[in-house]
């Protein structure tokens, strides 16, 4: 009981501490350096301050100090003239010092002029080189992925869209992390309403730390209590460039190799970038298979539980024997059996994801085979269910977007519980809840279930199927792009007679 009381008292204390801390003068961090110099030619004393761990010492030694010491450095205004560095700012605002200091600037003060400060950019940027996409891999097509440096990522997009209409707005988000976040869109294509919504949401974020774009995603989602991701995230510059041209909005976050895309819809999560690289027939069939697999993976185990628990009449007479004999020695009701197996699969997946790649794969395969076979032989699960669960797991892994894959795996459990509760009726109950939830969902205020509902015949051309590019005359209508037409359809080639 005492525990609870303590908890109640803790809060004010914490506040006091916090305020005490801010009262005292900030302690200097070890890497904060300040040194004074003297320019003998102009007889000027000046000092520089910088954070040694984020500035490039090379720049200081080669490009700053020699010039400051040897050239005609008479007043602070001269700094701009004599330094071979582009980003030099002269400010009067003392408050900026700290921000600039921690963003890799040198702070230059001249003893004669107490009012002005010069900020000289000398940031050291450590960038890893471009690598292959790891989540959205594809056999063919571009093989570069975003990296953690935002400038590099913007560069990747700029190269793909070298037009002046590609707009970039930058925000600094996170009271502690000060993360640079870029909002990108194409000025004359994107709907300004979408841009404004995204801008407002980004500006409204009040959080201390932004570690990844996923933080932004969760903080700006339309419905924060939904298992479904409401922004598409991608690590592929080609995909990001592609959606920019469709009129969507892309958000890049410094330190995150994933870009956010909005508005999006449910079906888009099942399209893989490869769909645009194959011929449209192959791509469409693959997409349909993917969607079917998803439905299958959600419904098959709940169906098994429902039918075996309540609806024996539904089972064809030739199948009854198979089902009954496979379950004969199993001591659990179907629901427990299914839950055990589903959880096992989830465990294997988690274990595989946590372990280093090579061991992970091995665990996956070995675990699957060994545990599966053993549990069947031990009479804990029936082999029919083992097949179904394994198939369902397989099917759930083909979702091209990782976050959507997770949502789908999560969905299976409520379905299972309701199947146990009310049989097939329970499954439909759950289905209706999911449909209602999806109907409520929006992405940047645009309906999430489009083009299914509201039904948009036109948008079907790139949803369940992907029609050939010459049929993709208009941009998706839920984006409500300013310019709807993608290209001017040439005069339809006249159909010739057989021999002409």
């Amino acid at each position, binding site marked *: 009981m005492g525990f609870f009381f303590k908890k109640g008292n803790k809060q004010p204390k914490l506040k006091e501490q916090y305020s005490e801390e801010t009262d005292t003068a900030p302690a200097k961090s070890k890497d904060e350096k300040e040194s004074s110099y003297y320019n003998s030619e102009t007889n000027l004393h000046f000092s520089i301050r910088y954070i040694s761990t984020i500035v490039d010492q090379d720049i200081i030694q080669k490009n700053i100090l020699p010039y400051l010491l040897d050239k005609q450095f008479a007043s602070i205004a001269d700094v701009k003239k004599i330094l071979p560095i582009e980003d030099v700012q002269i400010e009067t605002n003392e408050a900026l010092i700290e921000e600039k200091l921690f963003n890799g600037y040198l702070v230059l003060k001249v003893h004669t002029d107490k009012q002005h400060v010069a900020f000289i950019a000398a940031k050291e940027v450590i960038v890893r080189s471009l690598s292959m996409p790891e989540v959205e891999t594809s056999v063919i097509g571009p093989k570069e992925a975003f990296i953690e440096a935002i400038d590099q990522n913007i560069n990747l997009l700029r190269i793909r869209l070298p037009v002046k209409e590609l707009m970039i707005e930058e925000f600094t988000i996170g009271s502690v992390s000060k993360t640079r976040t870029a909002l990108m869109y194409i000025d004359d294509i994107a709907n300004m309403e979408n841009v404004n919504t995204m801008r407002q949401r980004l500006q409204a974020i009040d959080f201390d730390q932004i570690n990844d774009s996923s933080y932004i995603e969760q903080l700006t989602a339309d419905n924060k209590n939904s298992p479904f991701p409401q922004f598409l995230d991608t690590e592929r510059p080609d995909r990001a460039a592609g959606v920019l041209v469709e009129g969507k909005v892309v958000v890049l976050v410094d330190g995150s190799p994933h870009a956010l895309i909005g508005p999006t819809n449910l079906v888009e999560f099942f399209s893989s970038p490869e769909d645009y690289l194959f011929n449209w027939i192959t791509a469409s069939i693959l997409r349909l298979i993917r969607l079917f697999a998803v439905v299958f993976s959600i419904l098959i185990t709940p169906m098994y539980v429902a039918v*075996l*628990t*309540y609806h*024996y*009449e539904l*089972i064809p*007479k*030739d199948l*009854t*024997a198979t*089902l*009954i*004999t496979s*379950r*004969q*020695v*199993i001591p659990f*009701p*179907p629901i427990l059996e299914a839950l055990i197996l589903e959880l096992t699969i989830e465990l294997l997946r988690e274990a595989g994801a946590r372990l280093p790649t090579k061991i992970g794969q091995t665990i996956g395969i070995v675990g699957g085979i060994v545990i599966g076979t053993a549990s069947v032989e031990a009479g804990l699960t029936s082999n029919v269910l083992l097949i179904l669960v394994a198939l369902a797991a397989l099917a759930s892994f083909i979702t091209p977007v990782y976050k959507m894959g997770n949502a789908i795996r999560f969905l299976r459990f409520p379905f299972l*519980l309701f199947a*146990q*509760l*009310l*049989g097939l009726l329970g499954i439909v109950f759950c289905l209706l809840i999911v449909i209602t939830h999806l109907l409520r969902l929006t992405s940047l205020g645009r309906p999430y279930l489009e083009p299914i509902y509201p039904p948009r015949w036109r948008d079907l051309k790139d949803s369940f199927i992907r029609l050939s590019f010459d049929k993709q005359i208009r941009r998706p209508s839920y984006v409500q792009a300013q310019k709807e037409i993608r290209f001017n359809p040439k005069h339809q080639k006249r159909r010739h007679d057989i021999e002409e």
Partner: protein
Amino acid sequence: MKKYILLFLCLILSGCVNKSIIDEVDIERGVGYDEASDNKIRGTILLSKYNEDGTTENVTMTVVDETSVNILSRLQRQSDSTIVYGSLKLVIFSEAIAKKDLIEISDAFVRDARLGSRMYFVISEGSAQKVLKGEYGDHGNATFISDALDHNIKHGDVPKTNLHLFVYDYTQKGRTAYLPIIKKLNQQRIDISAIGLLDRQGHLVDKVSVKDMFYLKLLVDKYSGGSQVVKLDGDRATIRSIHSKNKIKISKRNPLEMSINIKVEGIIQEYRGKKLTQKKIEQFEKKFAEEINQNTTKLIKRFQQLGIDPAGLGHNAKQQTRNFDFKKWDDEYKDLTVHVKTDVTILESGVVQ
């Protein structure tokens, strides 16, 4: 929040409804009714028990009671696990029951939503219990008998039947029902030995033997199989009928006369005799049509005498008459003239002439 979770858990564990997990129930696949003394009914149910090695064991349980409905609840008490009857495939009535109580018993099957419409009602020669007690096939007796009926309906001479069609025929004015009759040959085999004809009250009154089953099917159903031997001046041909349909029409009113047009398309499967020319084929067509005419007319005469109407002449007459009076029809039916006209077309005669 905790409260809700607790509530939810309660629900999950209790459930709204009773479960019937398939490996924990006994599935009733067939049921048979025999006469017992004192106007009681002896009911036998057939359960399919599935062994681990994939074989099916036939378990029968028998009890004598006053009504057919009580039988299951009495047997329920004798069983170690719940007997569920939703997958019932086969109901067998002994001939004695079929002559008396068939309709009363069948009410329970029609009324219950749990049962499918495709289940078979059959009449057994001799005791139904004995039929159920055989060991036919590997997948259980009920499956065996219903499969046997299935394929004989599809490719043989048994006219289409199931629970729905039985009720349809029985309840349709100007039509009477029929049911297949099976006979146990020995412990491993059964035979579909005849078609039983029921009168308007649902009592078995007549049987059509194997010989006439072909003609009965021509009258009441469409063909997609079945074959018949036709003899012509010492030559002999086996004609396999691949399609047939019939059309029943009122050909004349006052006095009422009806005509049945039967169209048969077939191929010659076997031929013994002189060279099979086109002329010969035409002769066979004619002969076959004549035989059909004769036999079906004979059948219809028999129906008229018994006052039954499996071909649905009354129903057809009603369709072609405004304000049809069934009372008048009942009188007329007995001496109604019925013309049967058959049109046989032989499509193929194989790869040699």
